[in-house]
């Protein structure tokens, strides 16, 4: 079947499911009728999509850590601790990297070692090896919704088992998986795998079970936000075409307040607009913010300040869900205690600020950022549609090949890698090199001007050294 952004025919989906469910013995445990019945008996408060809609309607912000452990016991204890001690509203099952790469036999081996030793061995929850029953043992012990979590080129079986096991959504997406989690997999293959996941979620929606699909576009590295928003909107449109009805828009906060707030506003506005234009007007979108992975300070006091700062940005941006880094992750995989401390810190901040409903979104710095960001997103997205003759998937395949869709520091060899970001004199991310992005003079001159201002402030030309310093400067305790 030639790849396009059309809804999969039922016969094609059934054929694909037969193959996917045969990838590991637990695939045979999945029975969709039983899965739907299981979801229907769960209280609505355990459904992530319904919970974030409630937040949107009531102007609330919820907190959501990303975490996962290997054995049923370890994972259940971790999530109960985050729910009860960390006051987290939405929980996640972060999937281990063996499972994310479909190396289920390795995940099984690691799980056996963890069970024998009583110590964690895997870096996440191996949902496929645990199967539907094992997964439900975790979900049944909790009061809050749980999402599957973690980008990967092939999470098809993870979704079959994870959703049947009681998860009510997923965070990840084809574009971020392509740029940042593969070396040599064609983007069309990854999109195909995500169309499967999205069609499966669409099936649950058709049965009256809302599923929350959280797009994340690309991992930022001093990236002007259009570099994330464009692939995120592509992920949104791919999902909507397969019947996904509840989409959470992930905003990657890099620390520059006006630019981060403009990201939240621009992304929501344009995602809704492109959904409407593409005929998907019944899709509900909500927003989420988190600071990206990347080097973090090692001192706890500094990290607490950053957690507070990024939580504040999310609340001012009006997001429904805030994620957060944790105090100990510069040292090791976060502990449940470290995560709970971090989220209680975020909670205190949230409790102070959230009820104020302060509106700083009409601030002129925010609006100036919005203005340029919107032009950048439209320039690239409209070119993608043009290349695909109106089909966003076909356009994406062509645009990646031509460098119209590009990323800095991608792990994939199939990415042009010409674009590069640098901070301006205020700490906002600008294009040092816009590569082959289809930008007009106005956009390019805006970035050139910002770079000249930084050079004036530095009293020297921006060099690769400047870029390297910019990548790590927050870990040293400053935005610039």
């Amino acid at each position, binding site marked *: 079947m030639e790849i396009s952004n059309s809804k999969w025919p039922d016969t094609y989906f059934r054929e694909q499911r037969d193959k996917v469910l045969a990838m590991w013995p637990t695939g045979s445990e999945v029975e969709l009728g039983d899965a739907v019945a299981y979801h229907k008996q769960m209280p609505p408060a355990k459904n992530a999509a319904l919970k974030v809609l409630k937040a949107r309607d009531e102007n609330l912000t919820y907190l959501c850590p990303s975490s996962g452990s290997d054995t049923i016991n370890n994972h259940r204890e971790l999530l109960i601790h985050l729910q009860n001690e960390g006051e987290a509203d939405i929980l996640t099952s972060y999937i281990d990297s063996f499972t994310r790469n479909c190396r289920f036999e390795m995940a099984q081996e690691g799980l056996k070692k963890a069970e024998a030793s009583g110590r964690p061995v895997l870096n996440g929850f191996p949902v496929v090896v645990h199967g539907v029953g094992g997964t439900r043992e975790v979900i049944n012990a909790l009061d809050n919704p749980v999402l599957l979590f973690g980008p990967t080129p092939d999470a098809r079986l993870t979704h079959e088992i994870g959703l049947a096991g009681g998860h009510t959504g997923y965070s990840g997406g084809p574009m971020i998986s392509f740029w940042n989690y593969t*070396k040599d997999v064609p983007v069309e293959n990854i999109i195909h795998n995500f169309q499967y996941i999205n069609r499966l979620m669409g099936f649950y929606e058709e049965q009256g079970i809302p599923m929350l699909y959280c797009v994340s576009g690309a991992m930022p590295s001093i990236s002007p936000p259009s570099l994330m928003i464009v692939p995120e909107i592509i992920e949104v449109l791919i999902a909507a075409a397969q019947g996904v009805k509840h989409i959470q828009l992930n905003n990657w906060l890099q620390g520059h307040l006006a630019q981060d707030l403009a990201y939240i506003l621009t992304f929501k506005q344009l995602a809704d607009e492109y959904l409407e234009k593409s005929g998907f007007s019944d899709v509900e979108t909500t927003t989420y913010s988190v600071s990206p992975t990347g080097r973090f300070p090692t001192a706890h006091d500094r990290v607490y300040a950053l957690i507070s700062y990024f939580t504040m940005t999310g609340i001012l941006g009006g997001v429904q869900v805030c994620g957060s880094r944790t105090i100990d992750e510069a040292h090791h995989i976060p502990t449940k205690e470290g995560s709970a401390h971090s989220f209680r810190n975020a909670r205190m901040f949230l409790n102070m600020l959230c009820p104020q409903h302060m509106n700083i979104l009409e601030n002129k710095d925010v609006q100036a950022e919005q203005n340029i960001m919107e032009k950048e997103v439209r320039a690239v997205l409209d070119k993608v549609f043009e290349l695909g003759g109106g089909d966003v998937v076909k356009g994406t395949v062509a645009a990646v090949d031509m460098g119209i869709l590009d990323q800095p520091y991608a*792990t994939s060899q199939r990415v042009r*890698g010409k674009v590069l970001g640098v901070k301006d004199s205020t700490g906002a991310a600008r294009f040092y090199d816009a590569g082959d992005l289809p930008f007009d003079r106005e956009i390019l001159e805006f970035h050139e001007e910002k770079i000249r201002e930084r050079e004036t402030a530095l009293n020297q*030309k921006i060099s*690769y050294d400047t870029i390297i310093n910019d990548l790590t400067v927050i870990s040293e305790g400053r935005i610039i």
Partner: protein
Amino acid sequence: MKKPAKAVVVTGVIGEDVHVTGIRILEHALRSDGFEVHSLGIHNTQEDFIGKASEVNADAILMSSLAGHAEMLVKGFKEKCNRAGLEKTRLYIGGQLVIHSEAWEETEKTFLDQGFDRVAVPFLRPGAILAQLNRDLGTHAVLDMAG
């Protein structure tokens, strides 16, 4: 017409290592300075480097390793290069090459003894690497590097 490149280099990360930021910045700097860069990205074997270098007739191979297993990963690399007819291809390595802490001179000697022409000290900046490469290959710097 595109100008012919002043020299041809092959870049990549050896071994089960996903650290990509350093080599991506270096690749960008090399291209800006007029080199023809053949990037292998992450997860490469010795044979991947040799195959690409033979195919493009590389003047230099720039190898990166950040996971600390480099000594095991590059064992016999120079001999294999020679056998493949790459005697004249200059070999560069950099990153976090060892796990244990030792004097830099010892680490450098280990890799010089393995047949590398230059061993980059950790945190060496792209400007210094370009300058060294231009000196070694007798090529002229194009970029005006502050660093």
